[in-house]
């Protein structure tokens, strides 16, 4: 801040009450990663660079196309076909050459996500698909990084701060809202549903604002709160979010488990449901060659003597994955909820190598079915 240029550049925010040189110093020392240099990422990047965030990372493997320009306003016609990460980096460098900008012209994957995210203090999610969003969410939980989430669809936008440690409440993450990713065909994306260009501009700018508040300690950031905005009627609605300890089980518990996750698969539209009813289960039992696993706690009743199985309580399913040898596996619990989660968890590990089923309605329903028939 001794530099005269630097003082002049940030003067209009430094004179703000409670901001001062101290606030500016915090921004200059901060490291923010923006994942996705698209509709949300562009405005966020522009304001973060302008505000003097000392280190900004940009992850995007995509190239600029003409239909991006209506909302990704940082790019020009001459950028079409060029790497977004590299172009955004060059443009931001022109805006503020005093900060460090690190482009990652690569796709975020389970192999590189943790090592990239680890290098930054705050993560901004500006991606456009559920697979990457769940991957970023889980990575931030594993690494204890605050995640500034933003999303848009048509005329609606959302912003929230997830996984902020050090607040009064237990940190909330995206899986507390939607534990399981929707399948591809359940929710339309921007390409299918459309989006008003100015909306990601508003939401991405909100994300930058929340980052600046988190870094400087100013105001009341959207920690554990979901802010929603409708661009047509200007209605704003804010929800308080609550952590759900059960959803923690869906998140890989460390680097090794994370790298084995298959987020694409979780979000791809499954042609066949993995939930099976009592009749289908009986068919599988008759055919044999299946492995059956009870994911209930050791003391839970009713006891099951009708067929061979072994018990792996839900909490140990992930760690015990190696012990599952058969190609067809049926998991059950009391009502079918936990076993469904277990299947999702194991699917991330085994991908399409195994056929994994969850007994719908649980063992209670299966026993009832047999008493009735």
């Amino acid at each position, binding site marked *: 801040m001794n530099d005269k240029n630097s003082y002049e550049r940030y003067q209009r925010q430094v004179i703000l009450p409670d901001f001062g040189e101290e606030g500016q110093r915090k921004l200059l020392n901060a490291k923010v990663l923006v994942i996705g240099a698209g509709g949300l990422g562009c405005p966020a990047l522009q304001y973060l660079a302008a505000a003097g965030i000392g280190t900004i990372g940009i992850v995007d493997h995509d190239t600029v196309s003409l239909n991006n320009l209506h909302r990704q306003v940082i790019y020009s016609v001459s950028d079409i076909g060029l790497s977004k990460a590299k172009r955004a980096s060059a443009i931001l460098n022109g805006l503020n050459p005093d900060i460090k900008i690190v482009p990652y012209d690569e796709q975020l994957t389970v192999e590189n996500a943790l090592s990239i995210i680890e290098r930054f203090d705050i993560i901004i999610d500006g991606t456009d698909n559920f697979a990457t969003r769940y991957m970023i969410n889980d990575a931030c939980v594993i690494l204890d990084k605050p995640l500034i989430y*933003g*999303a848009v669809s048509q005329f609606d936008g*959302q912003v929230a701060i997830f996984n902020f440690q050090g607040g009064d409440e237990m940190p909330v993450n995206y899986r507390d809202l*939607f534990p399981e990713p929707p399948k591809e065909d*359940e929710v339309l994306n921007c390409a299918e549903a459309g989006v008003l260009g100015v909306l990601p501009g508003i939401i991405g700018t909100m994300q930058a604002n929340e980052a600046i508040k988190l870094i400087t300690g100013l105001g009341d950031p959207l920690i554990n709160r979901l802010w929603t905005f409708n661009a047509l009627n200007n209605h704003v609605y804010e*929800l308080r979010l609550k952590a759900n300890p059960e959803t923690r089980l869906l998140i890989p518990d460390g680097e090794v488990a994370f790298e084995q996750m298959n987020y694409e698969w979780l979000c791809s539209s499954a042609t066949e449901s993995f939930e099976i009813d009592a009749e289908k289960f009986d068919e599988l039992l008759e055919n044999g060659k299946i492995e059956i696993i009870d994911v209930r706690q050791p003391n839970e009743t009713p006891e099951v003597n009708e067929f061979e199985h072994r018990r792996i309580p839900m909490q140990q399913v992930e760690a015990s994955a190696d012990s599952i040898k058969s190609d067809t596996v049926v998991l059950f619990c009391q009502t079918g909820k936990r076993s469904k989660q277990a299947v999702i968890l194991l699917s991330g590990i085994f991908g399409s190598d195994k056929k994994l089923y969850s007994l719908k309605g649980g063992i209670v329903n299966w026993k009832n079915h047999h008493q009735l028939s």
Partner: protein
Amino acid sequence: MKIFGQLTDIIKSNTLTLTDTTDTKSLVDELKKQYPALDQAKYILAVDKQTVTENTILKDGSIVALLPPFSGG
């Protein structure tokens, strides 16, 4: 009730008033009866601006919000 995002395609409105519903479970059951497509939809439920995952008693005048997930950026 406040309906968000593409759930308005199912409910055809962004607000809705229901009477004689005592808790969120009966409210969702009633909605599904009226709008069967809701059965396949994913959403979070909030009562008076607090998200809820378990059945929650509704007071007179409670505002329930239905929000779908979306991923656009």
